[in-house]
């Protein structure tokens, strides 16, 4: 089946990038894999639309961000549990210190600004593509990015990481 072949090739190529994007958006690794899985199942169902999209990745990232927002809203309704579940071996405590530092810095941003930063700086979308994925004007992307950079530049740990990673 040609659709399955196209889909398989797309998934195999994009899976790591999507999972990593989801982690930078604030998910734990296992949550990120669940999110990407949900996203890609939705993509399979509407693969004809994905395949026809001018910006295929943009379309997929939009689905992922919408799913992420929806999950995020749902998590607000979750009740705290008295009993914590056993730690999962795939829990994100296994990510390297640099990831945790970056993620903590990104935690200081609003959900919308964080999405802009991750799409622009990690997924390498242009301002226009980012605006299209998020459904906002290009000017809003630029202003959010500018404010986010100001905020991130005030993070001493992030500044130290940048300083150390200078070639």
């Amino acid at each position, binding site marked *: 089946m040609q659709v399955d072949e196209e889909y398989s090739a797309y998934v195999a190529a994009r899976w790591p990038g999507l999972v990593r994007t989801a982690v930078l958006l604030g998910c734990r690794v296992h949550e990120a894999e669940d999110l990407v899985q949900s996203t890609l199942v939705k993509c399979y169902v509407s693969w004809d639309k994905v395949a026809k999209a001018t910006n295929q990745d943009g379309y997929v990232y939009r689905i992922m961000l919408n799913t992420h927002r929806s999950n995020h809203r749902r998590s607000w309704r979750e009740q705290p549990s008295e009993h914590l579940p056993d730690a999962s071996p795939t829990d994100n405590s296994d990510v390297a210190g640099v990831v945790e530092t*970056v993620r903590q810095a990104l935690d200081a941003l609003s959900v919308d600004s964080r999405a802009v930063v991750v799409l*622009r700086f*990690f997924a390498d979308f242009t301002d226009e593509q980012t605006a299209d994925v998020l459904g906002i004007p290009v000017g809003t992307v630029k202003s959010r990015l500018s404010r986010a950079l100001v905020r991130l530049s005030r993070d001493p740990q992030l500044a130290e990481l940048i300083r150390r990673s200078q070639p």
Partner: protein
Amino acid sequence: MTEQEDFQRLLHHAGAQIPASNAPVEDLIRYGRRSKKRRNILHAASVAAAVALISVGAFVAPSPIGGGGKLATQATTATSGLEGPPTTSTSAASCLVEDLGVTRGVSGAWHGKLSQIIEFANQGDRSCRFRGSDIGIRFKPVGRDPVSVDMTPVANRTTVLRPGYSAHLLFGVPGACGGIYAVVAHLDVTVTGHQLRMEVPELRIGCGKPRAIDLFTARS
């Protein structure tokens, strides 16, 4: 090098250190096919229901029943809510009575029958398995004997309800006699053995044995 480039480089550096397992391509295709099939069934059922309802022009606005619709519960025997990711679970636990909100959906007509939809919304935060055999519906028209809905047609139907989704039970009564609006004292809905009695102002009860027609899932 600009500040923007610094952040870009740092994010790529951090991203590269995030572990990512191999893509479960075969699982995704399998789940995707299942979702597609479910979507097609739902679409067909929705279109058919809309056509049938419009053709008779007998809409009754959806209204909550039972004082807001949430089932009062004395459930003590419900199963565990453990299961996998919402979109991929095939072995979800049975729906807990306390997680289901029950409302009266649209009433109208379906292939010559007077019809009524009862919605069971998953108000919990986990996917759960909802079976046709778990439901019972009985009502008591004023001045008549109680009537039970024959659930046989949907008894073997099972659906996995994601949070925010509803199971819609469509049942109908032969309406060849012209469709009688009757005052119904109450509607008893039973889920996994737990009963909720709901007051309903009126129900088109027709003139024959009520029978379940379909059970399908939709977003609440």
